[in-house]
């Protein structure tokens, strides 16, 4: 009844092409932004910030990146963790070697460096597809892991191999307490999500999707496969790089290469499969989902009086993720985001059958 678009006539193509053409969606988004930017900072606890909000926002950013590459352009990648590491270590090296640099510029450089590395590892995508490309990006993951563990200059000769950053400031404002970090990350993630949405709804995005859906036909209409695929690798790795830098600087604060290992790549891939391939919204839902399930398993059974050992919980986690991935691949390849879409379609007509 509430979600009804009857009477909302679009009088221009601009209105029809808006991100949220339906008024109710715009209202919902505005409410969501107000909640995220005003209500949450007033009410959230330290735990909510550090365990849920900050990590899920940062990982959502990396998931958007991977979704651009895999969901929109159809190139499977298992190297996202490695590209995040490139971002994290670029930011770290800039930070300790050029300390006067603004944090935003450091993040930008982290993204740019990751984009460059992503393009280099994306070159094989012209010749190989599917599983074989996945293996090539897996090689990128292992190579980058190795570089950050074995090249001492990159971790500033730290004897333990782990590095860290002190308290951060941006334009003189501190980014130290969870609330400050959360708001800073929220601003960056919201902005970059908007940029990603703009890209996928304009001609760059259509070229990516054309390559994904049928590369031969894409060539026929004049799309250059190499440039298009590499642009997807570049944008995707840029997002991964910024996300990696945020993850290292504002979430972990001190880290070692293992923070960006193959498991990170896999969990990002799970996020976009469960959240929804080819959906920006899905990247957020997927990231939140993957983060919340372990927390849920940790807290709910004890609260219900069912004692579960930590080992059982981590086993359960694997079983649930495995089952969910198989379920989504078979039943709904477009993930939770698609279920949300279907729900909205149904709601448009409810309570009438047609």
């Amino acid at each position, binding site marked *: 009844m509430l979600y009804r678009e009857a009477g909302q006539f679009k009088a221009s193509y601009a209105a029809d*092409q808006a991100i949220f053409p339906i008024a109710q969606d715009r209202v919902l988004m505005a409410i969501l932004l107000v909640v995220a930017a005003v209500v949450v900072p007033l009410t959230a606890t330290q735990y909510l910030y550090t365990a849920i909000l900050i990590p899920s926002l940062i990982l959502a950013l990396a998931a958007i990146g991977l979704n651009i590459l895999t969901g929109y352009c159809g190139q499977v990648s298992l190297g996202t963790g490695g590209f995040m590491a490139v971002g994290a270590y670029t930011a770290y090296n800039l930070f300790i070697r050029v300390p006067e640099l603004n944090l935003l510029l450091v993040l930008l450089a982290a993204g740019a460096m990751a984009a460059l590395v992503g393009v280099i590892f994306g070159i094989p995508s012209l010749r190989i597809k599917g599983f074989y490309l996945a293996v090539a990006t897996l090689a990128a993951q292992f190579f980058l892991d190795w570089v950050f563990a074995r090249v001492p200059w990159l971790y500033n000769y730290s004897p333990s191999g782990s590095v860290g950053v002190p308290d951060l400031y941006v334009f003189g404002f501190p980014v130290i307490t969870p609330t400050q970090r959360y708001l800073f990350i929220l601003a960056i993630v919201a902005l970059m999500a908007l*940029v990603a949405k703009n890209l996928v709804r304009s001609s760059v995005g259509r070229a990516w999707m054309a390559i994904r859906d049928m590369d031969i036909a894409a060539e026929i209409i*004049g799309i250059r496969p190499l440039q298009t695929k590499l642009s997807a690798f570049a944008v995707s790795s840029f997002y991964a790089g910024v996300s990696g830098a945020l993850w290292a600087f504002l979430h972990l604060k001190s880290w070692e290469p293992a923070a960006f290992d193959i498991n990170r790549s896999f969990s990002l891939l799970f996020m976009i499969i469960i959240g929804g391939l080819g959906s920006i919204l899905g990247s957020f839902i997927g990231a939140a989902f993957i983060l919340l399930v372990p927390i849920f398993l940790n807290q709910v059974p004890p609260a219900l009086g069912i004692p579960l050992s930590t080992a059982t919980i981590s086993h359960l986690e694997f079983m649930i993720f495995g089952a969910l991935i198989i379920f989504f691949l078979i039943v709904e390849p477009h993930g939770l985001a698609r279920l949300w879409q279907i729900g909205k379609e149904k709601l448009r007509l409810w309570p009438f059958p047609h």
Partner: protein
Amino acid sequence: MTQQSGRKIGGPLLKVQGISLSFGGVKALSDVSFEIRQHEILAIIGPNGAGKSSMLNVINGFYHPQSGTVTYKGATRKQMQPHEAAEQGIARTFQNIALFKGMSTLDNIMSGRLLKMKVNFFLQALYWGPAQREEIAHREVVERIIDFLEIQAIRKTPVGKLPYGLQKRVELGRALAAEPDLLLLDEPMAGMNVEEKEDMCRFVLDVNEEFGTTIALIEHDMGVVMDISDRVVVLDYGRKIADGVPDEVRANKDVIDAYLGVSH
């Protein structure tokens, strides 16, 4: 055949000369030469495996023939990539539909205009000013094509969900969106019922007449071919066996033999 008003068949737009193409030991085309004239509708016919689709693939750069030349708009070339053909104004549709299944009808047709969209990446990322104006300008063109093909109702439907006949129509729309000089249609009416065929014939004729687009089409339905084409090229086993106006071709002995078989 009826001569349409408002168009003049001109000189050759594209000329293929001595094209030979083989895959390993299989000869797909041997020494084929013909020309496509400006503003005409040329039909390429022949029995299965005659090399018709291979010929189209040579023209738009998918296959690189072992010998022979293709002269397009006066420039002779030997090898060319498909996207270069697109840049020079050659568009095509496929025998088995090659649409972008995950995208809507609108996006599919919009993607046909990619080469005409010039706004740079960073403005697109902001969707601001020139980027938005460009999107809207191209949307207007695409809407005219949607009107022309009478597919308004399926604008926002993902093409994977559309029935076959409509998918063929969307694919034609995508090719038209590029405003091609030469349109290659590979069996545009295959698998259609009579009404759908009539619709498609009308679209092909209208495109030819209204936009002056030169069309080369492969078709098996002889009724259609004889009705709408200005000239017919007949291929058999990779060789050209006839070339002329429909009535000439219909009376040609080699063509009759190729289609009906001949006693040895």
